[in-house]
């Protein structure tokens, strides 16, 4: 009888230990065969092979469809033609046209820009969520021999070098309207904050106080820049006017503060502080006040990024000596890991609050936070880091 009870006890312990040892689980479980199926007819007209490929990859990357090889197997069908800088496209369900549109690519940067816009309309129509195919990324690459600022389409096409100071450039971030990029450069031999105007290719130095000036982030309304300064004798968070000046100190600790990131409504700022030992993520009112620590998936968490729907903060989390992308749900405090291949760092949310872009060992990846699948962004540039996305 005793042996029986011991056996039962061990069995229960075994079961309990199995369930407690939970591996990182997907935030939302998506059943592959429940996704709407879609078939993309080859685009007719000029440059058809390339544009068809762009359209298929945009729809596939959204993670919202089952891509079918035959029209008869698909719930939805996409047809389009591209002639004389005009994309003529339709989304059909059975015999019914869900929508048809004409997109003029003359005002756009390229013919594929029209395809990206069409793909986003399809995604929005079927899923109700914004598409990210038209998004752009800014990032750092040392491919040219020094760390410089680059811009590219989110699918990796159209990469352009924006700076060529041949010193160290770091941490570029778009303004909400996508017309400016703020970043850190050692052009003056000190780390200073610069703002590049993409419309006229001019730039302006907006923070060059004593010590370091770095990690700028535009406020959602474009009026302010949050950044890290050490001018008053310690590394702290400040805001300045977007054109420079009027520094307002937000934090006051003995530790190191860094990496401010605004909430989507501009009322709060998430940032890093090691005032309690290792770096952790805190939030503070954008006017200053008492900080609140966010629960994270690791005792070392940096590089916060706030989702556009305001609900989650993603970050770099050190796990077993390597970095992974972590995410915390602000309402529940639940923290999970979204990657399991290190070193995955510096996440940046896209506008759909589902996908993020991050850097892993010199490459950039598109991460689906629902399925935890990562798709490498084919940039053909070496040592890429610190991506930031527009629109957000």
């Amino acid at each position: 009888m005793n042996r029986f009870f011991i056996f039962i006890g061990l069995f229960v312990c075994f079961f309990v230990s199995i369930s407690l040892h939970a591996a990182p689980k997907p935030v939302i479980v998506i059943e592959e065969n429940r996704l709407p199926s879609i078939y993309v007819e080859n685009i007719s007209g000029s440059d058809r092979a390339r544009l068809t490929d762009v359209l298929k990859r945009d729809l596939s990357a959204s993670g919202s469809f089952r891509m079918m090889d035959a029209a008869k197997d698909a719930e939805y069908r996409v047809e389009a033609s591209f002639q004389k800088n005009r994309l003529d496209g339709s989304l059909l369900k059975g015999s019914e046209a869900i929508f048809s549109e004409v997109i003029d690519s003359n005002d756009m940067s390229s013919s594929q820009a029209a395809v990206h816009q069409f793909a986003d309309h399809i995604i929005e129509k079927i899923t109700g969520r914004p598409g990210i195919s038209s998004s752009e990324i800014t990032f750092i690459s040392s491919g040219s021999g020094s760390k410089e600022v680059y811009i590219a389409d989110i699918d990796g096409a159209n990469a352009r070098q924006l700076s060529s100071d041949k010193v160290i450039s770091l941490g570029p971030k778009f303004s909400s309207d996508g017309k400016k990029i703020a970043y850190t450069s050692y052009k003056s031999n000190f780390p200073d904050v610069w703002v590049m105007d993409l419309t006229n290719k001019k730039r302006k130095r907006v923070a060059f106080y004593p010590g370091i000036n770095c990690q700028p982030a535009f406020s959602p309304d474009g009026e302010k820049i949050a950044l890290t300064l050490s001018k008053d004798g310690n590394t702290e968070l400040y805001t300045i006017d977007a054109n420079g000046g009027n520094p307002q100190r937000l934090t006051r600790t003995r530790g190191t503060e860094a990496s401010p990131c605004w909430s989507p409504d501009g009322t709060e700022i998430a940032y890093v502080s090691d005032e309690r030992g290792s770096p952790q993520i805190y939030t503070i009112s954008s006017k200053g006040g008492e900080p609140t620590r966010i629960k994270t998936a690791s005792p070392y968490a940096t590089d916060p990024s706030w989702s556009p729907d305001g609900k989650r903060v993603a970050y770099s989390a050190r796990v077993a000596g390597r970095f992974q992308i972590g995410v915390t749900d602000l309402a529940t405090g639940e923290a999970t890991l979204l990657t399991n291949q290190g070193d995955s760092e510096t996440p940046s949310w896209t506008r759909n609050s589902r996908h993020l872009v991050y850097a892993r060992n010199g490459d950039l990846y598109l991460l689906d936070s629902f399925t935890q699948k990562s798709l490498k962004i084919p940039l053909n540039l070496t040592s890429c880091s610190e991506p930031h996305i527009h629109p957000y």
Partner: protein
Amino acid sequence: MKKQQTLLWMLKKSSAFICLALILLIAGCTTTEKVGGGKGANGYEDLYDSGALPERDERVNPEGADYRTLAAHTIYFGTDSFTIDSSERSKVEKIADWMRSNPEDRIIIAGHCDSRGTTQYNLALGERRALAIREYLIGLGARKKNIFTVSYGEERPAVLSENESAWTKNRRAQAGILK
């Protein structure tokens, strides 16, 4: 009548009490504006404030500084730390001695990190290390306005390998003499 009077009296007294309580509550709830000043989360006031960094001028160039003279006094740090170990303190003292002998010379302290953390935090940590040295020097009597700081984070390792020995040598603060 008496009952009514008592009730009225009680009502008056309690309403006055309630008003007073409300006033105290509201007064307690208002927080002073914290922009640019006031107490931080841990209640520290400027007890350890070694003061604002001195303004840069054209001669303050970290790239042109002489890092050799004081190279023997490069200070090394523990992982993810900006505290100066007791074993490293004599080096800071030597730098302070040098500054006392060269009171008109200005120095810049360059803070660095090893490659294992993330880039942005490492840039701030490098500066925090430089500031810790500066604070210590000022405590030893060095002139605030003669000490500048800069950080290179993990961008300028002294040793390029990825091993414990290299990492130890990269977590450093170096004092450069400004020309």
